[in-house]
């Protein structure tokens, strides 16, 4: 797998701490929703650092991809990508990587996406792929975030959930809710799984992505609700968090 040069063509803030980076990649071979890339930064003295980031954009043929990076307070690479990087800069990346945590456009079964925080990024690639392909597979997203201001892709998700129900979305707020929100702030629980996910008799495939503790908790709840463990795919990131 070769390193390719990628030019920054767009920068968009998603939240106060997260930024989407649009990249034009030379000879990009294309990707499948859910895959990630390795990004390499090199200092003038030759020191380099590499981190993996999920691709947020849908597969396309124009050589453009987007990644969304959450800034970690003590990160080595994410502060650079979310603060220093400017349109016109060149990065190096290689990929796409990963053949397991992916949604392919020929999958027709109901899909349950479960996101914790920035774990929504690879799931957004699946939602966008589903929408751009005009897939009729029923899609549902349960999205757990700290507070309303921490939601990524807010307007686009709202538009997609309005448009002929391309995806049905349930939000869960863990620290602070919008005003007049019916459910108090807290972790996802049995009741939210019952109302916010496909029933197990539809035999959905589930994709769960987020911090390790979130993924452990969410998958335990899905299994307790009767979901088949063979149909649950997971991607976890540790407290270092630079995977996403």
């Amino acid at each position, binding site marked *: *797998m070769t*390193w390719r*040069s990628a030019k920054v063509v767009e920068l968009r803030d998603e939240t106060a701490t997260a930024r989407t980076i649009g990249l034009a990649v030379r000879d990009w071979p294309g990707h499948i929703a859910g895959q990630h890339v390795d990004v*390499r*930064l*090199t*200092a*003038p003295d*030759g*020191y*380099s*650092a*590499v*981190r*993996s980031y999920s691709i947020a954009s849908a597969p396309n043929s124009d050589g453009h991809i987007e990644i969304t990076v959450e800034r970690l307070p003590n990160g*080595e690479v994410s502060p*650079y990508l979310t603060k*220093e990087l400017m349109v016109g*800069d*060149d*990065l*190096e990346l290689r990929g796409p*990587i*990963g*053949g*397991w*945590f992916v949604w392919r456009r020929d999958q027709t079964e109901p899909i349950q996406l479960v996101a914790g925080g920035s774990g929504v990024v690879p799931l957004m690639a699946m939602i966008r792929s589903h929408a751009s392909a005009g897939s009729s597979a029923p899609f549902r997203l349960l999205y757990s975030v700290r507070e309303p201001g921490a939601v990524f892709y807010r307007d686009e998700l709202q538009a997609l959930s309005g448009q002929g129900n391309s995806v049905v979305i349930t939000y869960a707020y863990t620290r602070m809710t919008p005003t007049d929100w019916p459910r108090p702030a807290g972790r996802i629980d049995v009741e939210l799984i019952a109302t916010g996910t496909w029933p197990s008799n539809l035999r959905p495939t589930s994709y769960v992505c987020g911090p*390790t503790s979130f993924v*452990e908790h969410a*998958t*335990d709840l*899905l*299994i307790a609700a009767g979901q088949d*463990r*063979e149909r*649950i*795919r*997971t991607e*976890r*990131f*540790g*407290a*270092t968090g*630079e*995977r996403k």
Partner: protein
Amino acid sequence: MAIISRGFGGRRSAAEAKLPPGQYLTTDFPVLSAGPTPHISLDRWEFTIDDGSKVLKRWDWKSFRELPTETITVDIHCVTRWSKLGTSWEGISLDVLLADIKADLPYAMFRSYGDYTTNLPLKDVVNKQAWIAFKFDGADLAPEHGGPARLLVPHLYFWKSAKWVKGLTLMPHDEPGFWESLGYHIYGDPWLEQRYSDQ
């Protein structure tokens, strides 16, 4: 020729010098798993060695824990780029488990609860290179880290150290396991940075 990243300094420390290429240090213990964590009760747990047609050895938890144990302090390196130095484990050496086996089969497929598999040359798991570990940092190994017991092969990328391990199948030829069939390297030496199958 690498592209220089304008304004990127990076962080370097003396400890980084001990790491394989492309790795960074963490003091956490991140988790990488393909699916839900299985919760395995000790009265159902077993470990078997077979040659693809017949079981050559079988232990339940009680007989397994009567085998001689070792404490192991090693550095571990995950393909997702974190490394953790000086981790402390307790486990049973594969040398003990394979001691009476006379099969002339040079490869092994390790099998886990939850259907995970990973392949290893037998020469990489003998001679004090691999253990079935059941304690980490003095405490029982937590389910999300592979408990009750996981393979520990610290000289290869950590996906080879299969969680929730339940046995191994000896094989005449090398065959890819789970991640090895999904784009990751068949062998996985971190010092040679063997991350991906098509690199």
